[in-house]
């Protein structure tokens, strides 16, 4: 299997990922507590999981639509790139709950977040975190963001309603 190399230095992409994680964690810690610990944990992990899910399905063969960071191998920075999504998903759920978004306004909320997410991804690709391949581009990601964040809203209601029920 051919391994693509983009660079092998500790440079912009690594710094960008580290700074994003630190800023994200600080924001999460500074926000007033809103959810029980367990709920906070799954709202944080939700983003990390989705990052892993899409990056390990879309960025590996047979599709391999993009590579992360320095090469198509899995590196520590790739792992950190996924962790970076944790605070992002937490803030998504936090603001949804904080502003008590009504279901009929959920689509507007999701659209706004899809634009924010696409903007962030543009920034990430500029700093060398994402390397698109085989015709993949930001517009496809935009659709994925709309889908994923719709799932998150559904997930929010499921957890709020049935989260404490034992199975």
């Amino acid at each position: 299997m051919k391994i693509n190399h983009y660079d092998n230095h500790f440079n912009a992409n690594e710094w960008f990922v580290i700074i994003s994680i630190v800023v994200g964690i600080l924001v999460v810690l500074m926000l007033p507590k809103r959810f029980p610990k367990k709920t906070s944990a799954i709202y944080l992990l939700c983003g990390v999981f989705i990052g892993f899910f899409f990056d390990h399905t879309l960025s590996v063969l047979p599709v391999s639509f993009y590579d992360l960071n320095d090469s198509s191998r899995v590196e520590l920075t790739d792992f950190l790139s996924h962790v970076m999504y944790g605070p992002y998903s937490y803030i998504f759920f936090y603001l949804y709950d904080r502003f008590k978004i009504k279901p009929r306004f959920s689509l507007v909320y999701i659209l706004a977040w899809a634009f924010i997410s696409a903007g962030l991804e543009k920034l990430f690709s500029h700093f060398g975190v994402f390397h698109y391949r085989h015709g993949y581009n930001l517009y496809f990601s935009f659709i994925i963001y709309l889908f994923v964040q719709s799932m998150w809203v559904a997930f929010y209601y499921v957890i709020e309603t049935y989260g404490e029920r034992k199975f």
Partner: protein
Amino acid sequence: MSLAIIALVAWLVMIVFVLVPKWLTLTDIFFLYFIVGIMTVSLFTLLDVNLHWVPVTRKVEKSLALDLCRFIIIPLLVIMAAGILNSPLRAGWRWTIGLVILVILVADDWMMIRLALIDFRQWTFLNSFLMYVVFIMVMAWIARWFVRLDRGGLRQP
């Protein structure tokens, strides 16, 4: 055909998962699912892309089948095992059921090889068995910690 077979197995695993008691809340189950999912995809990618010990298929249909294994079959079986190991059942039953799930996980690996979804180059079924033992034990420990998470914390003044 591989996709249909794996989809059928995944469906059967989902049926069992829904029917058996797990002694976990929905929040616990989602938490464990996310952790198992993250660990499974990381292991598969590491063993394939980095180490080339367990190369995975590059065909579209088989890749979809592999995704069903990675995101449904393996996580649900591991969550069931973790739940049962922390259950109020007698120790003998807990370990017996845990062992049965372990055997099913190794059988799932065998099925993936038979359907040409993965290949064991520098990997054996013993490695798989040991990996799943560690996986289940770690998940059982994480489940134990997470279930008690909201009981701890700082006391309110």
